[in-house]
């Protein structure tokens, strides 16, 4: 098992290198000069600008600049935010927990919805339940997250006035009340993101269970007298989850996109809203670092999917 984990991590390294090359190429190809302001400032002689460029190595050949950039990225030396005057890594570490909390709860919500509904749909294909679930799933993944978010705000905050639509990190209440307020403001972002994921996951789950349910080992499990629930949970669902994990892993980059939108709508102080704010404020170091972090998060979740495979299907780790 540990050999398998090691191998998966080693496979990720070239991917990470590739992604960093793409990111660096985009940055290097981008027009604009960090010392543009100096160029237009008549008080700064051109020699000073040239010296600055040489000092920061802007005139070095591209591969040299790439290696230097990559080394400082890996060492966590991500520079200094132009706008908030803080180190970029401090800024990101402040924001990351909110993003991970929302994403994690949304994923749990999606699994809790999709696995039972998808399985039940597949057990009774083309029944009323299945048709309603399929229709809802289609509607669910055709509704873009930004529109669902607005509809939720319209319904639950404006019309019914049940939930706050602005996420606050400075809630003054203490004790139970503090937890309750946090829970209440997290409901809508988590629901928007979770329902969106649940929609496609339900479809995957239904298809996977339909593939598995007619296989011989399910009949064997029933024939040897296992109860229906044991057959379902231990034999059908566990095996059906293997392709579902693949498909969900492929969707992870899209889910991060949804997270950015949700954070922006509900003003969740996570790295997604940080990204948008920095883009609007031309804060390049933060933009680069957040994009890099999102790439790392995607890779980390791919790794998690690989580990999940090995747990679901122990044969995989022996290959």
């Amino acid at each position, binding site marked *: 098992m540990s050999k398998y984990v090691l191998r998966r991590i080693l496979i990720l390294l*070239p*991917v990470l290198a*590739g*992604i960093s090359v*793409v*990111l660096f190429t*985009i*940055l290097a190809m*981008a*027009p*604009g000069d960090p010392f543009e302001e100096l160029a237009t400032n008549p008080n700064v002689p051109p020699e000073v600008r040239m010296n600055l460029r040489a000092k920061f190595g802007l005139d070095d050949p591209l591969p040299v600049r790439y290696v230097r950039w990559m080394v400082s990225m890996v060492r966590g030396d991500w520079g200094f935010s132009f706008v908030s005057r803080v180190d970029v890594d401090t800024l990101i570490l402040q924001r990351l927990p909110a993003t991970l909390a929302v994403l994690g709860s949304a994923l749990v919500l999606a699994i809790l919805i999709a696995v039972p509904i998808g399985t039940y749909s597949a057990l009774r294909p083309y029944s009323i339940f299945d048709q309603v679930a399929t229709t809802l799933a*289609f*509607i669910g*993944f*055709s*509704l*873009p*997250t*930004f*529109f669902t978010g*607005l*509809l939720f*705000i*319209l319904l639950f905050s*404006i019309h019914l006035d049940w939930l706050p639509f602005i996420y606050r990190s400075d809630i003054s209440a203490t004790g139970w009340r503090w937890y309750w307020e946090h829970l209440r403001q997290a409901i809508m972002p988590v629901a928007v993101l979770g329902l969106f994921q649940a929609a496609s996951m339900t479809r995957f789950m239904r298809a996977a269970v339909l593939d598995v349910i007619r296989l011989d080992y399910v009949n064997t499990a029933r024939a040897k007298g296992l109860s229906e629930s044991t057959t379902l949970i231990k034999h059908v669902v566990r095996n059906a989850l293997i392709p579902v994990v693949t498909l969900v892993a*492929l969707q992870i*980059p*899209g889910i*991060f*996109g949804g997270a*950015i*939108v949700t954070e*922006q*709508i509900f003003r969740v102080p996570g790295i997604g809203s940080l*990204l*948008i704010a920095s*883009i*609007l404020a031309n804060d390049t170091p933060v*933009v*680069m670092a*957040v*994009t890099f972090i*999102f*790439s790392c*998060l*995607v*890779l980390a979740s*791919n790794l998690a999917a690989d580990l999940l495979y090995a747990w679901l299907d122990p044969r995989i780790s022996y290959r």
Partner: protein
Amino acid sequence: MAARVASTVAGKLAVAAGQPRTSLWQETARRFRRHRLAMVGSVILVALVLAVLVGPLVWRLPINDIDFKAKLKGPSWNHPLGTDDLGQDVLARMLYGGRISLAVGIAAMLIAISIGTAIGATSGFLGGAVDHTLMRITDMFLSLPGLPLLLLIVYLFRDSLRKMFGPEAGVFILIVAVIGGLRWMPVARLVRAQFLSLREKEFVESARSLGAPPIRQIVRHILPNSMGPVIVAGTIDVAAAIIAESTLSFLGLGFPPDIPTWGRILYDAKDNLDFAPHWAIFPGTAIFLTVLSINYIGDGLRDALDPRKVLGK
């Protein structure tokens, strides 16, 4: 060629069974028509496309006619979908912006399909080291974070492209190229898989033994037969590209305010939700209906083009 063989065979079988002759495409169309929701989706999509193409000619209110007396009004006879905060007619803006939204979807899909088919075909036909390298690159692109990267590229390149091609064309080219350039990977994988199996098939072998050069084998024999899954993926890609563009515009980083794509209208509307909900609901519903009908059409096409179902029905 294979399609022709298959259709003659199917035709002969049909004649033998005493049914009228049908070509392969007629057969596919027949199966597509049996998918009720796909038909409903097609009707809705055609209606939407006609509305944005013909609508601005019929509904002639200008999209930037500012009228503060009528601002943030709900639907009325003068303004069937209400007005925005400057008193501009939401219907006129949606009809005009819808053209851009749909055009972005289709153009980005064409780019994604072209890149994906080229890479998948090269990979599947040549095999070996080329295949291995291209597939590693595809895997790497699949783990790129789409939206953050899209935002990064738009952020870095927006101004210079705007200078080069003007504000509208510049943003259009940028958005279409980037969305298409980040969505070709599934197509490449599908095409490669098709090529791997098709290039060993007898009809390709016979073409090869008759002396067809590789390019003819690909273009004339393998490619037409591997198009089924590509068509389905392309359909879904249109929906995904429309969502991507709307997301960008919704975040305020897509088209400028004078090009009211549906996402852009939502962006402008979101701060007035409490007193002008219509302003957000109509463009949002337009995006939703478009995406939903495209998804259903994709589902119908998948059923209709699935060769395993040919013999079943």
